[in-house]
C-alpha cells in the first residue's frame, strides 16, 4: 500500500470511492474541496492505493495561520474501508504518518477526523473527542427507498397530514441548481438566523456554493411559496447515496401553510429520483437535551420519520512537537511583551 497526493485525473475515481463509503459524505467530495479551495482554504487530497487500486484516503482542509494553531480538518473523513478493520487500520496508520509529516510542514498541532461512523474503531488509538463538531451529531436519517406512498407511510401521521395540507393549500415548490432562487432563499434564511440568534453566512457564500456545486447536480436551492409569497426555502446537497438538508429558512407569518413540509417532501422525492438512499436532516437534538440549540427544530424534522443516528463525532489527534512549539513561542512572546 502507498499513500500519495491525488491529482485532477483521480477526480472520478475519488468521488466514486467517497460517494460509496458509508462513513463519508459530501465534504469529502472533490467538488466541495474545490469550492472550499476557492474560498481560501488549503486543500490536500490524499489517496491510498493497494496494488494500484484506490481504496482509501482523505481530503484534508486547513486554514493557513501563522499562529501555529490551524488543525488539519477532515470533515466526513477520512475515507477508509471501515468494514474491514484490519485493512482500515493499516490505511489509518499510513494516513497518520502522512498527517504527522503535514503537521511538521504546516505547524498544525492537531488533526481533526470526523467520519460518519457510529462506533469508534480501536485503531484510532488515543484520539480525543473534540469540543466542536462540523458534522452535526446526532442526526436524523430518513430512508428514501420506496414510492411516494411508501415514503408518506414512513412519516408520522402529522407529517403526512401536513404534507397533504400544504398541497391542498396550494403551496408551490420551485427548485433551481443556478442562483435564480438564492436571493429569496437568503432572505428567509437570514430571518430565521436572526429569530434563533444563529450566525448566518452571507448571500455571496450561497451564490458561490451554487455556482460550484450546482452544475454537477450536487446542490439545489428550493423555495416553497404560498400565493406568490416565499414561505420556506432550503439548500440541499446530493452526494453518494445521501441528500443533505444543509441550510433552510421559513417565514414566521406563513407557518400555517405548512410550506416547509411541501418543500422537504419535494427534496425527498428529488433525492430518491436521483438514486439517493437517505435524506440527512443534518442534526437533531439528543433526546436527553431539551435545551440543545437544535431542540426546537428536531420535533419538526421528526415528522418525516427516519432514525436518529449518533456518530462518533469529531476526534482530535494531537501532534505534540507542534503543540509544544506553538506553546513555547507564545510563552516567549508573552515574556517579550512583559519585558
Amino acid at each position, binding site marked *: 500500500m502507498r499513500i500519495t497526493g491525488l491529482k485532477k485525473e483521480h477526480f472520478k475515481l475519488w468521488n466514486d470511492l467517497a460517494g460509496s463509503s458509508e462513513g463519508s459524505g459530501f465534504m469529502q467530495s472533490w467538488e466541495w474541496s474545490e469550492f472550499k479551495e476557492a*474560498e*481560501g482554504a488549503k486543500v490536500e487530497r490524499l489517496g491510498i492505493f493497494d496494488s494500484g487500486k484506490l481504496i482509501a484516503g482523505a481530503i484534508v*482542509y486547513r*486554514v493557513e495561520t501563522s499562529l501555529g494553531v490551524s488543525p488539519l480538518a477532515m470533515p466526513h473523513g477520512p475515507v477508509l474501508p471501515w468494514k474491514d478493520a484490519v485493512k482500515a487500520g493499516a490505511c489509518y496508520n499510513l494516513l497518520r504518518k502522512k498527517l504527522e509529516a503535514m503537521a511538521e510542514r504546516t505547524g498544525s498541532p492537531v488533526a481533526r477526523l470526523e467520519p460518519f461512523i457510529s*462506533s469508534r474503531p480501536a485503531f484510532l488509538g488515543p484520539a480525543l473527542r473534540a469540543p466542536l463538531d462540523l458534522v452535526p451529531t446526532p442526526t436524523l436519517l430518513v430512508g428514501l427507498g420506496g414510492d411516494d406512498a411508501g415514503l408518506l407511510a414512513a412519516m408520522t401521521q402529522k407529517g403526512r397530514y401536513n404534507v397533504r395540507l400544504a398541497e391542498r393549500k396550494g403551496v408551490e415548490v420551485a427548485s433551481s441548481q443556478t442562483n435564480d432562487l438564492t436571493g429569496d432563499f437568503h432572505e428567509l434564511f437570514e430571518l430565521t438566523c436572526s*429569530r434563533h440568534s444563529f450566525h448566518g453566512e452571507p448571500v455571496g457564500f450561497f451564490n458561490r456554493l451554487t455556482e460550484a456545486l450546482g452544475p454537477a447536480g450536487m446542490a439545489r436551492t428550493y423555495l416553497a411559496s404560498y400565493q406568490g409569497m416565499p414561505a420556506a426555502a432550503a439548500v440541499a446537497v446530493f452526494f453518494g447515496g445521501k441528500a443533505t438538508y444543509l441550510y433552510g429558512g421559513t417565514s414566521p407569518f406563513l407557518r400555517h401553510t405548512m410550506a416547509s413540509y411541501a418543500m422537504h417532501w419535494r427534496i425527498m422525492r428529488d433525492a430518491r429520483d436521483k438514486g439517493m438512499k437517505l435524506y440527512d436532516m443534518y442534526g437533531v437534538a439528543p*433526546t436527553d437535551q431539551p435545551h440543545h440549540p437544535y431542540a426546537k427544530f428536531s420535533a419538526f424534522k421528526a415528522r418525516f420519520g*427516519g432514525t436518529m443516528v449518533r456518530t462518533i463525532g469529531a476526534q482530535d489527534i*494531537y501532534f505534540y512537537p507542534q503543540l509544544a512549539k506553538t506553546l513555547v513561542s507564545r510563552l516567549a512572546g*508573552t515574556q517579550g511583551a512583559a519585558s
Partner: protein
Amino acid sequence: MSRHRLEVREVPGGRAFYIDGSLQFDSRDEAVYHEALALPPLALAAARLKRPLKALVLGGGDGLALKRLLDGGVKSAELVDYDPGVVALARAEFAGYNGGALDDRRVKVNIGDAVKFLAEGRGLFDLALADFTFPEDLAGCSLFTRPFFSAVRARLAAGGLFAMNAVSPDRFPAAFWSIYRTLASARLYPRPLRLSIPSFTSHGYGDWGMFLASPRPIKDSELEALRFGPGGWLTAGTFKDALRLRVSGIERGLPLSGIIKKPGDLLCLINMVEHAFPGGGAMADFSDSAAARSLLAGIPGAEKLRWPQLSAEWEWWLMETLRLMDWEPFLAELEKSAALLPGRVLEEIRLLRKNLPELLKGAVPDTDRAWQVFALLMTVLVFVNMAYPDNAYAKGYGGSGGSGDGGDLEITFFMQNQRSPFHNSVFQGAEVFQTLTASGIPRAAHFVRYRAPGAPAGPSGVKDDRLFFALTDESFVSKEGEFFLSLGNEYLINAKPDRFALLDKLQPDPLFEFYPDPSAVQAALGGMEQHIKSADKALDSYKKWLAWARPAVVFSREVRANSNEAKNIAAIRGSLLKASKRLQEGPAAKTGPDIPADWVRLAPGLYLVDDDEIVMVDKDASLYSYPYQAGGGVRNTLQSKLAISFPLGTSPGAAGRHRYTLLPKSAVMDKFITAVLLAANSRISAGDPRKAIFETLLSAATGMGHI
C-alpha cells in the same frame, strides 16, 4: 453583477445601506463614521506636506469618504472598489449624500482588486483610506494582513497618512489589537480611534474602531493642532474623545493579539467575538503617546492572561482534553523546544511538570506561574478551535457534549403518533390571543399589568397590556409597543433604554430597576428590524392577493383567515415599530459599571460573584450585594417590593462578607433569585462545574426557607 446582496432600506429621515445584511452606513449618522475616517488624515497630511494632496480610497465605493476628501480640497483622488454594484448605487441612489463625488473631475474610479491595484501601480499618494466591509471570510481578512499594510505603505509619500476602518475594539478586542500590532509591524505607526455610531450600536456592532497611521510617527502635538471645518460632527473635542479607548478592551484583547501575517490569523480572532458589555470603565487616552506606551507596556501578557469567553463549558471541555493528553511526550517536547530559549521559559515548564497533578485537578490558585503556562496552553487550544471555523470548512454548530467514547449505534425511532407542535392559526383569528414562539409553538399571550416609569401612583398609572409578538422564546413585544424579556414563568423585565424594570407578573410595580443590558436591547432592535421588514413583504403580497380575493371573505374561511392575518400582521408591525422607536429614542442609561469578566451573569443586572455573593446593578449603575444565603429572617414583603428604598446596609447577618452596599433581605427578592438560579441550573448539563455552585446556593436557600 454584484457578488453581494446590496440593499438600500428606507429609514425614518434617511436611508440605510447594507451589504449582505451588514450595515454599511445610515444616512442619519454616516457623518460620524466618514468624517472620523477621512478628515484626520486629510488635515494631518495638509499640515505636514503643505501641497495639493493626492488621495487614494480603497473600498469605500459609496463615495461618502471620498466626498469628505473632495470637500477638503484634495487635488486628485483615485477610488478602487471591487464591487461595480456599490459604485453604481453610489452614482444613482447615494448621489444626494455623496454630492456626486464619483463623477467629480478630480476623481478616477477603478473597479478591481485593491491588492492588485497597490501591487501594479506606481504613483505615490499623500493619504490613503481603507474603507472595507467587515472581514468575515479569508478574502476579507486578506485586507488586514501585514503584506497588505506593507503594500499600502509602499504607495504612501514620505510623511503620508493612512486611515482605516477596523473592527469593534469591544466586541473583537483580540482582532482589534492584532490589527494595531500588524500596522506597527508594517512600520505604519498607528493611533487607535473609537467611535459611538448610533446606527452601528443599534445593530449590536458595539463601539466602532478605526486607525490613523503613518510611516512617520504621529506626534501628540500634531494631533493636538488638528482643526476641522465648522458645521461637521468632527471637532477637536470629538476627535480627542475618539482617541480614548476602554482599558478593559485592551486588557482582554492585547494578551491574545498577534501580528496578522495570513488571512487565517485574523479569521481565527474574528471568531472570538465577545458579547457587547455595558459601557464605562477606565479609559486610555491615545492622544498622549507616553501614557499609551506605558499602558501597553503594562499589559504583561501571560501574567495577566485571562480569557473572558472561556466559559465554564469551555473550561470543562479543555480540562477534559488536558486530562486525557499524553503528558510525558508533550512535556519532553516542551522542554526540547524551550531549551533554545532563555532560562525562564524552561524553568516555567519544569514548574508545570511539577505542579501538573494539582493543575489537572483544577486545584491551583490562578496566581501560580505554572498555572499561567497551563492557562496559556488552554488559550492555544481555544485558538485551535477558533481556527476551525464553521465558514472555513462547512456549516456546523457547537458540540453537543458527551465523551464520544463510541459504543454501539444508537437509534431512536420516532413514533408515528407523535403530535405536531407546528399546526396553528395564531395569526388568523379576529384577534391575536396567542404568541408564536421561535420554535413555532403557540402559547397563550400573557396579559400584563405594569406601572410605567413616571406614571402616577394608584390604579390610573397602571397599564394593561398583552405580550403580542414573540421575538424569541424569551423576548416579546407587547401590543402597546413595550419590549419585555421573560425570566421564567413568573417574572418579566420591562426593558427601557435607561432601565430594566423587574416585574412580578402579578404585581404592577417594579420589584427592582436594573441597569439595562445593551446587548439585549441591541439584539431586540435587530430582531424588530428583521420582522418589520418581513411583515412589510408579507403585507405587500397580501395586498395583491386580498385585492382580488376579499369579496370572498363572507363565504371562504380561507380568505377570512388571510384577511385576518394581514390585519394582525399590520398590528404587530405597528407594535414592533413603536417598540423599536422607544428603545432607540428613550433616555440613555448612565455610564455603566465595569463588570469583571469572571462574574457569572444570571440575568440582566444580576450577577454571581466568587460563587457565593449575589450582586445587583441598579438603574443608576450602583452595585449592591444581596444577602441571598444570609440568615436573619425575612422582611416585610410589601416594603421589600422596592428593595432600594430601604436604608442600605442595614440588613442583619453577614454584612461583613459583602463588598458592596448591602440590600435588605426580602422574601420577594429571595423568591426571584431562587427562580433565576433554578432556571440557570436547569439550562446547564450535568457535567457543568457551575451546577455544584448553583445547587449549593439553592440548597442553602432551601435551608433558609426560600424555596
